[in-house]
């Protein structure tokens, strides 16, 4: 068989699969909607603030609630503490102190 035929026979289905996968991402996402809604309801009911992805330590378990000061000492961003630190950067609010943190009138 001609090499070009073989190649088209292989690439054709692959390309079709890719296009299909991309085109169906919308509808397939919709299929997850019930589960997502249920999870959202759970978050609302329990008042959750974080994904339970990194259960190694308290500051990896609740990164959004991390201590203002422990961030730079113990934060997962320290490589030698936890591998998960390399996947989740310190929350923005501790990298740049949120403008709310000392909204009290300045002494001067």
């Amino acid at each position, binding site marked *: 068989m001609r090499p070009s035929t073989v190649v088209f026979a292989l690439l054709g289905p692959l390309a079709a699969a890719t296009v299909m996968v991309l085109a169906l*991402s919308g509808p397939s996402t919709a299929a997850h909607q019930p589960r997502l809604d249920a999870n959202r309801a759970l978050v609302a009911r329990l008042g959750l603030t974080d994904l339970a992805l990194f259960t190694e330590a308290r500051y990896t378990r609740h990164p959004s609630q991390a201590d203002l000061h422990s961030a730079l000492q113990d934060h997962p961003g320290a490589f030698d503490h*936890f591998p998960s630190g390399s996947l989740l950067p310190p929350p923005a609010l501790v990298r740049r102190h949120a403008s709310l943190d000392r909204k009290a009138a300045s002494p001067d």
Partner: protein
Amino acid sequence: MHPWIEKQRHLIDFTLAALARRKTRNAGLLVAYTLIVFVLASLMLFANALRTEAAYVLAASPEVILQRMVAGRHDLIPPGYIERIGRLRGVQKIEGRLWGYYYDPVVNANYTFMARPADEVADGRIMVGATLARERGLAPGNTISFRSYSGRLFTFDVAAVLSPDSELLSADLVLLSERDFRAFFEYPAGHWTDVALAVVNPLEVRNVAAKLAAALPDSRPILREEVLRTYESVFDWREGIVLTVLAGAILAFTILAWEKASGLSADERREIGILKAIGWETGDVIRMKLWEGLLVSLTAFLLGFVAAWVHVFHFGAAVFAPVLKGWAILYPRFTLVPAVDGLQVATLFFFTVVPYTAAVLVPIWRAATTDPDAVMRA
């Protein structure tokens, strides 16, 4: 068949026959290239799916969580604190929350204990997350004991296991009654862990937080928008391992491209001369090489992408599991939302196909445009 199509097929036949002369090397090249695309695409798909899910479900998180800080550390909310908040305009509900961590030496895992109202869970009973249940072999009706930090053993009946669909959120949760919680942790009466506030109007949230910070100087309000922003940057390409993988991939691409572009061997040059001498135009030679670059990079992209898709959405990104899991014992089993960021896919496609094809074309440009009479002279 249209002569143009037939001609392209001829060119493809030739370029494939030429590649087949060094089967092992070219197969190895394709495999390496596909692997690079696979890893990058997997990361991309996984990160996007996780971010999409986090953004959606955490949108129902409390608008403001108020923490209290003592000497830079997170401290308990004392009695009367909540009353000092008083009535703030726009705040619909103020609720003290009770939650904490428990280290289970039986499986070396951390759990998150949360107190829930009596109508959800009765005294002496608990609801557990599905991952935890799996790890400890629990089902509704089972009994489990925890040794508190004071040394006392507490026994609970498992009333229910939370839905496996929610493992990403509830993997390590233990929900128990307020009374049990306080007894177990010997929590000082009247104290809370933090305060959750519900604010109706999203535009009012910052104002409310500012007022809180003013009214309670030792407090630290955490807004929902900050929670969401934390998860927007998970797996960000600018961070940690992802950056390392990306840098590695770019380096690999560069080496690949450099190897291709570092000039032709005398044999290759001669062959192009022969092709031109037997009647191929410069354009034909270039088109043939273009097909070579396109076919290799396109195959790598398609194979890598489809494999990544299957890997992430059918196998839950199993390759990344060790990294994600880290030292944790509890790792949630989750199905990911197959949300795809079209722009990212297009970018990956562009950077997979274009540089490699260019690298294949550049060195032959010179040879393809020279007169073929050099061949006669060889």
